[in-house]
């Protein structure tokens, strides 16, 4: 039945070349763990992406209960974690995934560094990867405030003090992120907006560029 449906659509839209172009390509032997087990180091980029997808999905579901309001934020997180069925699991995925994505990204960066894959002609992809790294750190920083507990509050205060120590413009950066002069109601809504709309938008754009470049240039050769 699915084959029939697929053929019906393919006759009209000719989608086969499209997905072939994306998905149907050879994996070189030196990056295939089935050939050399040590090639598992080439999996970290894909694992980073896999966890990123989980982060996006679990985050989407978390916003069904979460409210970015200083009175209710903590209680909404408490509720979704302890009252909602599977709340511990969904929030746990987002919580642990946030750390894991940094770990995986770091391992991926190490692999790229030690195999020399950043060298010409792939320098631009390294730069885009670094931008992704900073966006991920930004996502971690903004997401950390959202439960609005003591740890979140003081971590953000410290983080904003660090931002404020930038020469000349630090004060403005701090106030802009703060949404005023204190970490309060407007900081929480701001961080929420940055965490769920602005940075994911930037992240997806950068990821598209990252993947486009790796497809265009291919995987770097064996050592």
């Amino acid at each position: 039945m699915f084959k029939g449906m697929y053929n019906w659509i393919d006759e009209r839209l000719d989608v086969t070349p499209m997905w072939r172009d994306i998905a149907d390509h050879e994996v070189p032997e030196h990056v295939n763990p089935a050939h050399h087990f040590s090639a598992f180091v080439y999996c970290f980029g894909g694992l980073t992406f896999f966890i990123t997808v989980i982060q996006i999905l679990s985050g989407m579901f978390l916003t069904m209960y979460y409210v970015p309001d200083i009175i209710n934020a903590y209680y909404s997180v408490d509720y979704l974690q302890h009252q909602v069925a599977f709340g511990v699991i969904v929030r746990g995925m987002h919580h642990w995934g946030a750390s894991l994505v940094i770990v995986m990204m770091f391992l991926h960066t190490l692999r790229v560094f030690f195999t020399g894959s950043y060298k010409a002609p792939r320098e631009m992809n390294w730069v885009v990867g670094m931008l992704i790294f900073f966006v991920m750190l930004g996502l971690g920083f903004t997401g950390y405030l959202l439960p609005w507990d003591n740890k979140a509050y003081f971590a953000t205060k410290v983080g904003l003090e660090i931002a404020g120590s930038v020469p000349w413009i630090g004060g403005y950066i701090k106030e802009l992120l703060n949404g005023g002069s204190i970490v309060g109601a407007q900081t929480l809504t701001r961080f929420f907006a940055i965490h769920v709309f602005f940075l994911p938008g930037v992240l997806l754009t950068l990821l598209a560029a990252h993947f486009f470049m790796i497809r265009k240039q291919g995987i770097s050769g064996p050592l």
Partner: protein
Amino acid sequence: MNHNEQHETAHKPVKRKEMTRRQFLSYTLGGATAFMSMGAVLPMLRFAVDPLLEKKQTGAFVKVIEEGKVTSEPQQVDFKVHQVDGWYESDPKMQAYIAKGDDGKVFALSPICKHLGCTISWSGPEAPNLYHCPCHGARYTKDGKNLKVAPKPLDEYEVKVDNGWVYLGPLEPNTRV
């Protein structure tokens, strides 16, 4: 110079100062596009930076302690200030360490560490007769002078003494060190 060449120069196309139709149209189109995108983007930017440009609330003076109770040993006082945070108004509890200096003047220090904003406290087993910060071990003297870790001395509350009572106003940079 032969005749032929002369003929050529005479008939060289006149260099016109006007732009071509194509250029005019692309400038017009580009300008209109830029104008329209500015119309969309500028309101959003102004919207985002509004808290930066909003007038800061000026702190009123709050009565905190009787002047007679202030000693040369810093003591912690709690007081409430009215705070407007966007749509949320509250009266959060503030803290100050009040003491009499060697000059006999009453002064009040903010307990917010100048390193990264943790809350410091006065004296204790790990730092006798000093302010210490639990986060990264910053130390300050009684006057708020930064001894370790912190880059700047502790902020000071503006102090007013009136009719035997001490009033605290807005924070300002330390004036004692």
